[in-house]
């Protein structure tokens, strides 16, 4: 195993530990763990990617990894965007309720 492969695996393992400790939803965490373990396998056994690529009709193993990375990144981006929209909606409700329940009155108004 090369030095570069060891570094990559260590980085992947650290991110795996961090995501496992976080309060991410179980489904997302499971998916992340599967993808991470898959990534470690491909780093240790690069020829595996080429074999799988040939099986599914993609020329090179590196192309297969690029396609998987793109799909996974897009899924992650979409999931995070949806979560942000939900959080923003809740934030709007809270901020609005606070503003309405705590009006201030200028000169000659409501006094």
């Amino acid at each position, binding site marked *: 195993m090369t030095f570069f492969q060891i570094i990559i695996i260590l980085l992947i393992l650290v991110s795996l530990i961090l995501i496992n400790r976080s309060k991410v939803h179980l489904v997302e965490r499971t998916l992340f763990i599967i993808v991470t373990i898959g990534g470690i396998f491909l780093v240790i056994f690069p020829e595996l990617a080429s074999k799988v690529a040939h099986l599914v009709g993609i020329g090179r193993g590196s192309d297969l990894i690029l396609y998987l990375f793109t799909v996974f990144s897009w899924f992650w981006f979409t999931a995070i*965007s949806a979560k942000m*929209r939900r959080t*923003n*909606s809740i*934030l*709007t409700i809270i*901020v*609005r309720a*606070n*503003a*309405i329940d*705590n*009006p*201030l*009155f*200028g*000169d*000659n*108004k*409501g006094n």
Partner: protein
Amino acid sequence: MKTIETEDKIRPEIIQETWVVISAFNEEESIGEVLSKLAEKGYHIIIVDDCSTDQTSKVALDFPVTLLKHLVNLGQGAAIQTGFDYILKHTDAKYIITFDADGQHDVDDIPGLLLPLATGKSDVALGSRFLRSTTGSGMPKSKMITLQLGLIFTRISTGLKLTDTHNGLRGMKRDVLNKIKIEQNRMAHASEILTQIAQHKIRYCEVPVTIRYTPYSKKKGQSIFNSLNILWDLFIGKK
């Protein structure tokens, strides 16, 4: 002259039944003049400070206003909806006017918006800068292009035949607030209101209004690049 005639037709009771909603974000330079003119006419005023970092709230409280403060900056659409919610919950307003804080709008145009509402001709009166020949002068070219694109977009998406789709000066009856719910927190709310007018088949009309293009209002106004953000918000549905 036309404005004065319209103003004569608006009974003082109607003024008393009218609440003006202003969304403000860092408008300390202009808000004092705007509120002074509105207060002089006797309108009730709700100002929603969208988490300004300047003295907007302090200046506003020198006038007879109800001030609602957002603890987080949410955007103009969210601020207007906050004003609407307050009106429904805490006031007996019959007519609601939305008015900009940057001094672009003319207080003397409000009676023109109230007239079709008070006479029962319409439930929503939308201000249009293109129905009055005196306006348009001083409008930046980029603004003109943005507004024309907005017209095309609105025609396609809602079927409404309007001459001005992104004018913040508009009037509506109280009942309309129960139908229109702004969920676009940022600037796409103008298109969202029109979409909901079309969806609920709310009776609307356009009323000529004047827009003043001052260096300050141009600085605060929408850039053509921001119109792309609006389209993105409308399609992606970001709040």
